């Protein structure tokens, strides 16, 4: 397995230097870049795609920030390996569907992933655990500036960086924040939030972007527009939306604790019981239960150190990861059994829930 060393290593998502935060799980910024004089990947012929792949791989390999990175070509990866990379947000579903001439370069800590020949020639992505627009922007800006010394990016003084889809033209920047919003979901307020966020020119999507569901109450909030505003303005506007949603989430949680603590305690208790003792668990069930355990940590029912473990399990309970850990392809039923075993082992070690922390009426 080509990606084994990467998965075995300590990654930003599974072993971040600082403890995970309450509501914001991770921050991600990506830049879309293309090379002048070459057709976009979706319109290019195979030989043209290969040329771009080789040139980009060489340019990326020479960057100081990308030393010791894994250089992976999609056509050499198994379906399972691709699935694991998608689950880690290191490649998109679109890239995994591309065969010839597509690749990705991933830094050892998986904080930087540069996709080649996805929708654009380059999709540079920087990811960090927690809520850190400034750090992430500084990091991606430096990588972009270094690459610009080596590659002739397609750029217009009028409309900025030229991209395959006109929706990305300008800065080519998409910033997104992964938020855990169980309070708003339980209070039935997510639809209202999605509408309000859309009105501000931002988008709310599920865990895996467009068209994906929101298992585990995980949502990505990102900017939609890329032209007519500077990177700093885009990040500032998105940041203020994130702050507002965070406030709404905390308020929703407080109301749940105040209005119906028994119901909330029951939901959390049942989730914990099934994770510790269940024998068959689908991935969306596991995600939803883990989401309630993360909420329990936030509410003080479990020690704060458990949050990192919950976040790791949210990643590891996904179908690709379950099979990768088992070193084989397993059918859905087998996966549900393997997943339940993993949950029993991991959550079985956690301390009991301290319900005294919830204010019972």
């Amino acid at each position, binding site marked *: 397995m080509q990606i084994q060393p990467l998965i075995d290593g300590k990654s930003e998502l599974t072993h971040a230097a600082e403890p995970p935060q309450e509501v914001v799980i991770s921050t991600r910024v990506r830049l879309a870049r293309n090379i002048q004089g070459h057709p976009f990947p979706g319109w290019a012929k195979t030989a043209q795609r290969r040329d771009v792949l080789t040139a980009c791989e060489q340019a990326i390999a020479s960057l100081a920030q990308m030393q010791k990175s894994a250089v992976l070509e999609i056509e050499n990866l198994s379906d399972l390996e691709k699935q694991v990379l998608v689950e880690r947000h290191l490649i998109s579903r679109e890239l995994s569907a591309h065969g010839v001439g597509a690749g990705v370069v991933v830094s050892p800590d998986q904080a930087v992933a540069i996709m080649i020949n996805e929708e654009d020639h380059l999709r540079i992505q920087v990811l960090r655990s927690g809520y850190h627009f400034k750090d992430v922007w500084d990091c991606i800006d430096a990588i972009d500036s270094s690459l610009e010394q080596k590659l002739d990016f397609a*750029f217009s003084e009028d*409309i900025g960086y030229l991209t395959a889809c*006109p929706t990305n033209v*300008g800065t080519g920047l998409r910033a997104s924040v992964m938020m855990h919003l169980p309070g708003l979901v339980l209070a039935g307020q997510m639809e209202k939030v999605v509408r309000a966020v859309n009105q501000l020119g931002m988008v709310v999507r599920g865990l895996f972007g467009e068209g994906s569901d929101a298992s585990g109450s995980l949502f990505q909030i990102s900017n939609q527009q890329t032209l007519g505003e500077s990177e700093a303005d885009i990040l500032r506007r998105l940041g203020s939306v994130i702050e507002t949603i965070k406030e709404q989430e905390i308020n929703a949680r407080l109301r749940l604790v105040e209005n119906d603590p028994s119901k909330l305690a029951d939901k959390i208790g049942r989730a914990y019981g099934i994770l510790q003792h269940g024998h068959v668990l689908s991935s969306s069930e596991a995600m939803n239960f883990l989401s309630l355990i993360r909420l329990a940590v936030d509410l003080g029912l479990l020690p704060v150190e458990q949050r990192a473990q919950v976040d790791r399990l949210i990643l590891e309970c996904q179908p690709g990861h379950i099979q990768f850990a088992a070193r084989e392809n397993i059918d859905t039923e087998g996966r549900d059994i393997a997943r339940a075993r993993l949950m029993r082992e991991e959550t079985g070690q956690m301390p009991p829930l301290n319900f005294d922390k919830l204010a019972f009426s």
Partner: protein
Amino acid sequence: MAKPPDCSHCQKQATIHLTQIVNNEIKKLDFCEDCPHQKGVTDPAGFSLADLLSAGEGSTAPLERDHGVCPSCGFSPKNFKKLGRLGCPDCYESLGSFIEPMLAKMHRGTQHAGKVPDALVSRIRHAREIKETEEALEAAIASENYEEAAKLRDELKALQSTSESANFSHG
């Protein structure tokens, strides 16, 4: 319920109702679907009814005629309707009349306000200067203005000598 009016020209049921103001008098005309076409009734202030009714069908057909095809990659607006993506970076210029209205609808502005890669911009300007000098040189030769042509050829040589490789690498 009142009986729907009949067509002003035949006895079929009227489905199109036209109100015209002619010499400060309001004239109301009722037509069946066929009569406006046959009688050549049009809205004097603008489009004909026939145009209005067929506008939906004809709107996608003349895309290439109106906007052209990208000479760099052969991409056309029709391909965009199918793929939702463009062919190459040059499409933004060659299919500008097709793309610009879209950008205005999609984004907060139509002018780039973000990062400007300085080295890249100076390369773009340099390439543009070379192209313009080449064109001026060709024009000078065509008009047999050899003194000017010699001057332009020297300028072009000087520009090309400072030019970097236009390919991938600038390392």
